[in-house]
């Protein structure tokens, strides 16, 4: 029986150990200088190109033989512009969180590039990688496991300063931590408390304060509010929007809650089975979706108005998501798509502006990976 290689996974999870490539000092210094240079507003700060992550499936105990791979992320490309929020949505298991880990270099990409200010961070190591980590930070999904239960809040938020001592001189750290607590709306006197003494929303604020400590440019948010109550979700989201304005942050916001993503995002990407299905501005995606998967996803959003609900068409998908270890040929969505034809099983649709919309000035003219892309307004349909 094939099982997911624990060893392979563990080896991937500790990139620092396995790094053998040596970068000579001059190129490293060059990379660090490039990373520290500022980027103007509206310019791309992160460019992801054909990012691939395959987890090997191995057989055998002593002599491991690779029998296949879970294609968690299989060729994802997008840009993140300075100061914007890019939402990434998709159902469970579509590779959203793996994308987040790859952007953080917590996992090493199998192939593809992630350019941060022109530097491919998937190839960096040592001092240059540490400099990148200062500028790209993460907010985790579960506020109950993302804070070390044996450290005080002061130690948790102060840890970034221990790792990057150049950011704050030693005597200044306590004050900095208290400032950060204040910024995220927590009482600075809580500095000596332990995480279990806080509610979920407060813990998530602590996680955000830790992410902000190094004054990063990009924050990757991996489902930052899905573990929180709805009322607390709103507080955390509003806090994040406020911080974005204050510190000029760029967010990659990963979630499965479509309404929250629409609320916070400037642009939205829809993922299905390790590939990007459609990407565009929030209006383009929500009001003018052209990919059948996006349309199905949006038609499942609950509508609070019973009158509007009556006439609404619901697209019910049949079947389950195929296994990422053995994805369908051609278009990944074809097994559940009502538009699927012969062409879909042979030709992989590229993520591009569909031919029929090319050169037109309509909101439907955005990148969509479908051979038969056509506009369908599922939210307002009556």
């Amino acid at each position, binding site marked *: 029986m094939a099982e997911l290689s624990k060893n392979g996974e563990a*080896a991937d999870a500790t990139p620092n150990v396995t790094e053998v490539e040596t970068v000579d000092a001059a190129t490293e210094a060059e990379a660090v200088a490039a990373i520290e240079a500022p980027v103007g507003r509206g310019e791309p700060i992160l460019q992801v190109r054909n990012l691939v992550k395959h987890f090997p499936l191995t057989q055998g105990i002593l002599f491991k033989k690779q029998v296949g791979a879970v294609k968690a992320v299989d060729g994802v490309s997008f840009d993140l512009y300075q100061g914007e929020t890019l939402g990434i949505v998709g159902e469970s298991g579509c590779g959203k969180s793996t994308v987040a880990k790859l952007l953080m270099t917590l996992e090493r990409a199998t192939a593809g590039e992630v350019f941060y200010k022109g530097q491919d961070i998937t190839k960096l190591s040592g001092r240059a990688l540490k400099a990148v980590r200062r500028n790209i930070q993460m907010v985790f999904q579960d506020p109950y496991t993302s804070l*070390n239960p*044996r450290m005080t809040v002061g130690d948790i938020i102060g840890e970034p300063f221990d*790792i990057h001592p150049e950011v704050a001189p030693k005597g200044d750290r306590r004050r900095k931590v208290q400032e950060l607590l204040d910024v995220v709306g927590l009482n600075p006197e809580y500095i000596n408390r332990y995480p279990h*003494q806080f509610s979920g*929303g*407060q813990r998530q604020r602590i996680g955000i304060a830790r992410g902000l400590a190094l004054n990063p440019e990009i924050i990757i948010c991996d489902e930052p509010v899905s573990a929180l109550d709805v009322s607390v979700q709103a*507080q955390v989201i509003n806090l994040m929007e406020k911080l974005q304005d204050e510190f000029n942050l760029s967010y990659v916001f990963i979630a499965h809650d479509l309404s929250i993503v629409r609320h916070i995002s400037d642009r939205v990407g829809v993922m299905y089975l390790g590939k990007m299905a459609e990407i565009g501005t929030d209006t383009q995606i929500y009001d003018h979706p052209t990919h059948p998967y996006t349309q199905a996803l949006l038609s499942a959003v609950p509508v609070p108005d019973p009158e509007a609900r009556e006439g609404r068409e619901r697209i019910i998908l049949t079947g389950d998501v195929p296994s990422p270890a053995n994805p369908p040929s051609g278009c990944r969505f074809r097994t559940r798509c009502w538009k699927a034809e012969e062409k879909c099983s042979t030709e992989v649709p590229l993520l591009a502006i569909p031919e029929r919309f090319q050169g037109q000035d309509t909101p439907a003219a955005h990148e969509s990976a479908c051979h038969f892309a056509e506009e369908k307004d599922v939210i307002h349909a009556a």
Partner: protein
Amino acid sequence: MPEPNYDEGAAIAPTGAGGAVDLAMSEGESLEKTPGGPLGTGPAGKPRSLWSDAWHDLRRNPVFIVSALVILFLVLISIWPSLIASGDPLDCDLAKAQEGSQPGHPFGFNGQGCDVYTRTVYGARTSVAVGVLATLGVAVLGSVLGGLAGFFGGGWDGFLSRITDVFFAIPVVLGGLVLLSVVTSNTVWPVIGFMVLLGWPQLSRIARGSVITAKQNDYVQAARALGASNSRMLLRHIAPNALAPVIVVATIALGTYISLEATLSFLGVGLKPPTVSWGIDISSASQYIRNAPHMLLWPAGALAVTVLAFIMLGDAVRDALDPKLR
């Protein structure tokens, strides 16, 4: 900047710790168990870590108190046996062999005419020394090897796992008979060495498992995302969170090492006379169990109480450190 509203989270959040404190107010006992929330502080006025929570639970657990007192007593008499036994365990008078209880000699005499009370008291030192030193060795070796294997994974981990499989396949008593029968030393060290050799795989598995569990926690990923070094992640984040199961298993194992020492001595491959040990006394008394049962019962009783105390202590510590039972 707008006026900060610090308590908004706690006030709105239905699951806020503030609410937990209010609930706990109605039951005096659980107020103690609920660490101070953001709104109110704990009874001591300062925050408690999980360790101090566990200590707090342990202090009111009668099983813990009794076993801890027994262990404390054992440790005291193994350091200063003359506190409660004035005689010499090697001062024997064959004329008194197998005699029962007498004034000044409450436990009677053994087959060599030695005072059983004095020998039982002096025997504690060997048992406690073997138990504590073997446990320390096993815990250090096992948790370092297992912890590193769990953290780094890969080939080293696979290699170590196979090695532990090999050691698990060796029956302890048979291994003892084979390995210790060739040793002629009269000290406790060969026995301790043997226990460490056969005991570390158990601890290493526990340590490996709990390190792998701790490693997958988001706070370790967060530390890595901040650029933390491996040693920082291991020492600051993983070790403190992976230590609890190791401590619990080691405490329970301590009891079994003491009984293993007695077993090996009984079989004649452990400690050898003139070392004073419960196992040796049980072994030599076993032939006379019908004529003079007191010779067997006192050292065997002391052994049973000691092992029970360590196992119960381990049990109590495990319960206190398990947040799910809280």
